[in-house]
């Protein structure tokens, strides 16, 4: 088993969940570098040297215009070849919160025709119905037929926090939604604690069909609004002092572990 899983955590102005995302990967034995997008564009760092690309949460470029939009364009226009190659090589990408917004707005997700020269966007993450930023904990149901490699083995609903003002998942139209479902690309849905369909505040933003996270057709590129790195340790749970379980890890750790194990097994 190779232990040398290398993760690039993408940074730019306004990225702010990079350190805890790095901690999550490293705690499970991967090596993670914080890589500024400028260093990738100037070829001071090379995506080729990494197995996993993580786009963490934050407010890239202040989320001015719309959340993630400016970094999404920058990725698409400057790094799309490298990213296409990265995915084709069987490597993994995860976008969390702002990272998911960036993957969606660049077209990397759902990834049907990701193309730097012909811009197209099939889904978006837009202003919450409540019109405000909210930090709250929600339950997620893992779609039974999801093809995502990051979430394998998750059966029971998991409990993670969301913290965003623009997380409402909206597909362009019904066809896009049907296609996502038929290609097993829906990964997580907001749900009630017992796993049933739900509404505000358990669906914190008004997302279409409660969708909280999706993947590409390969299952290797994954974006989600909730923060697995904020329930990586048990003591991040909002009422861990009530829990009998005294494990070191929280629900979010499974996702990072899956990513690392996938690389170890397959690359």
């Amino acid at each position, binding site marked *: 088993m190779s232990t040398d899983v290398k993760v690039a955590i993408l940074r730019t102005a306004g990225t702010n969940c990079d350190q805890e995302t790095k901690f999550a990967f490293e705690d499970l034995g991967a090596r993670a570098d914080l890589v500024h997008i400028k260093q990738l564009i100037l070829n001071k760092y090379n995506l080729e040297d990494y197995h996993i690309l993580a786009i963490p949460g934050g407010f890239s470029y202040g989320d001015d215009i719309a959340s993630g939009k400016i970094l999404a364009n920058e990725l698409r226009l400057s790094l799309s070849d490298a990213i296409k190659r990265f995915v084709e090589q069987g490597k993994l990408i995860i976008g969390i919160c702002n990272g998911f917004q960036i993957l969606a707005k660049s077209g990397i997700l759902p990834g049907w025709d990701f193309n730097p020269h012909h811009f197209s966007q099939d889904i978006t993450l837009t202003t919450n119905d409540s019109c405000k930023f909210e930090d709250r904990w929600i339950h997620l149901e893992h779609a039974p037929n999801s093809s995502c490699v990051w979430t394998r083995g998750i059966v029971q609903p998991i409990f993670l926090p969301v913290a965003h003002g623009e997380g409402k998942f909206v597909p362009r139209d019904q066809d896009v939604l049907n296609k996502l479902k038929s290609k097993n690309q829906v990964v997580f849905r907001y749900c009630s604690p017992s796993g049933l369909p739900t509404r505000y505040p358990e669906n914190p933003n008004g997302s279409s069909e409660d969708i909280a996270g999706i993947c590409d057709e390969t299952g290797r590129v994954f974006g989600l609004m909730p923060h697995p790195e904020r329930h990586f340790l048990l003591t991040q749970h909002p*009422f861990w002092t009530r829990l009998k379980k005294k494990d070191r890890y929280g629900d979010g750790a499974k996702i990072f572990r899956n990513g690392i194990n996938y690389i170890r097994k397959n690359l």
Partner: protein
Amino acid sequence: MIWRVEVRDKKGVFDALGESVKKDILDLGISSVSKVEVSQVYLLDGQISELQVVKICQELLVDQIVQDYYHTPQQTLLIAPAQPNLRIVEIAYNPGVMDPVEESTLKGIRDLGIETVSSIRTSKKYLIYGKLSDQEFNMVVDKILSNKLIQHVVDHENLSGKKRAQDTETDAQKNAPLKIVLVNITKASDKELLSLSQQGQLFLNLEEMKAIQKYFKKEGRDPTDCELETIAQTWSEHCCHKTFRGDIRYHTYEKGKKRSKKISNLLKSTIIKATKEINKSWCVSVFHDNAGVIKFDDDSNVCFKVETHNHPSALEPFGGANTGIGGVIRDTLGTGLGAKPICNTDIFCFGRPEVDFQDLPAGTLHPGRVMKGVISGVRDYGNKMGIPTANGAIVFDSGFIGNPLVFCGNVGLIPKDKVNKTVHKGDWIMVVGGRTGRDGIHGATFSSGELTDESEVISCAAVQIGNPIQEKKVTDALMKARDQGLYSAITDCGAGGLSSAVGEMGQDLGCRVDLEKVPVKYQGLNYHEIWISESQERMVLAVHPDSCAKLLEVFASENVEATVIGEFTDTKRLELFYEGCQVGNIAMEFLHHGIPKITKEAVFAAPKLKAPRVVCPRNLTEKLLEVLSHYNVCSKEWVIRQYDHEVQGSSVLKPLVGVHGDAPSDAAVLRPKLNLSKGIAVSNGINIRFGMIDPFWMAASCIDEAIRQIIVVGGNLDQIAILDNFCWGNPDKPDRLGRLVRAAQGCYQTAVGYQVPFISGKDSLYNEYTLKQSGNGKHKKKNRKGSQSLAIPGTLLISAIGIIEDIHRVVSMDFKRPGNSIYILGETFDELGGSIYLDTYGLLGNTVAQVDTKSGTKIFRQLSEAIQKGLIASAHDCSEGGLAVTLAEMAWGGDLGITVLLDKVPYRVRRDGAVSEKASKRNDTILFSESNSRFVVEVPPEAKQEFEKILKGAACAEIGRVEESPEFIIYGLNEEICINAYIGDLKEAWKKTLAFA
């Protein structure tokens, strides 16, 4: 050519912003609006083709899944003909106000390969459907959509083709020859000196003006405008705290006898004196750097600073709070060689949100708007910086209508070898971060005077909007440069701008600055504006010339501007140049120590307050519901959830805890290093109503509250440090100052009593609102001079930070298991004075909660021991609302019921209390008294024996049991049930008050 792009939601998409504006209009009492639509407007200036505009729209400005757009050359914009029942209004930022969207949008356009857009302005267009009178429409524009200090209504008819005012001015000034302005002071009469101070907004008194006159007579010349401004800023109350450091003649009246004494330097004789006497070895740096520093672990220290930003927040709540939090974060960045910000804390005082518009004094904003604006400002900056806002409080009182208080605090983590800084001769002066503009001029002096209803006109340049992403970039670059040891000293550019920052760093050596080297936002700034501008997001570094190239490289890698603007010398003078001409040359000694010491008069006489007469209701259930829904008790969830309190992954005890995540925690606990078990706890204590009875006991109670909140989560009295923030009325008025002295004395006595040192502090005085013109409200009660002054209630905020040895041992406040025993620790006294309970009757009372640090210390230590031994299932302190509220919060936190017997509660009257024990021992007193140093704890049956052993001899009693059934049952002294409620109903009462959804 200017292209106009309007972006709006597609038909059928839920317009969240429009809906929220509609709700705000409804809150104004206008119910005729059926719909509001909002468009984002971009004006793109430059040589661009229509094809390029379309590309910019489709690929950047418009989210085509949910939005439509419309583009047109600005000149050909058709002004829609008036329609009945539709009002259209467009709001834009005033010239010179920073619009952060401009910079990032320009970058986004360049990324698309389009280099010819030279500038961008943005605005918002509102379409309001429904029948509105002109008056109602103007009210909507003024009260909801815009603030005229920073924004204006776009007048399309008069705009087309014309250049913006600022550009014209800029062109004119660009070509003007440099003119050095000298202020005629050496020959001025006293009257002229005072008028100079007033007209120049210097806020200096005659004695100070005369000292300046004397200095320049000696120099044999008049000062430049720039020099005078530098002195005014350095000597401002805001920057040098002359009240706290000056002399005071303090007179007290006790039983008709007058006593007088002289206090020399109030700060040194109370707050700092306490710290010196306590002398803790883990205090690393106190009262001299930007923040106080204490030891965290063997490698690192933590620092803590709390600032206020009251005056700007009164005028422009969003911008004021926004730049307030930005400013205190820079205090952390400027501590030692720079600390990493790890936690925000925010405490606000507002007027009550239900006040009528007609009752507001002229020139003040409605408290509801102030509240929403301030909270949004903190949310915007804190969240975008990626710093968890983990602790806070909100106090509502009608005394804050003209003067809201905004306290912003920040905790930082710093390697222990980065705590000291030294400026060397020959170091270069470098300014990093944002560019300098005309914003925030006179902020330091402005906050050292009272607000008037003209403030919004004359002080508009003092109001700014922050750019958190700029500050985040600066932080990222600084942390890298710090770890590589690339600079030798740092400080923040806050109030007073470069003048304050450079002047302070160079005070022992001297320095020389070439002002034309400072990067500016636009041409046309003159030298003195550059020097005193308070533009945000800037830091000043002292850099050895050999490190300069490497340092510039680090900053460039994060896209942050860094510029050498001068050097530190050994002349002991502040020398300023602009394009080679000397525009300032002052001795550092005079600048920093030349201020004449002032003696102020202070008087304190205890107010004569009557004992309240309240008949204790037999059934107190209704009263409990009323107390729970009181503004100063009720749930602040609406606010807390808007703040990211979990970023950095460090949260251990969140502000909201319990089964449903909606019960209020005591101190927040964070783990700054995710791989270690060591943590910090952060809390605050504030209670203005106690101060209305006696500021001494207010101070004591605030300290007790801040400390006990840390003890109750698992802290230890030996590792807690505190900060003081005084917000007070005009200290030139003896009654105000007398109360301030009394509060400072309370601070000294209590800190020494608990052996808990102060490590930093700040004061904001002159929090008064003077009506000069004729107001139109009921508040208008003119005095002889024709003006009326509204002072805030004297307010002390105590913030506390404690070290938690092992975060796995922390205790939360929610009841855990039916069958566990409920204990109360600490004695309850007849202390209803200033309580929430009496406030529900509209009464203040007279028996304010006192603090006995001797018995408090014992209880704190006993509780800490029990927590460390793992005997406590849950624990919560008793504060606003007393024992009843504490029990209720713990019950719904665990979704469990209780049975409690009041006759078990240890109760006593204070010796100097006016009422006998028999008369005062009543159900309502026991339930709602706000006595200090008390806790409720939950102990499992198997731990009871050991727990009682630890608590032996203490005022501690088992008072009831946690129950499975969600009923809240309290038996009164006569063994009859006095409270009987479902916990769901209690929680509902607590939640509904501020449920803004």
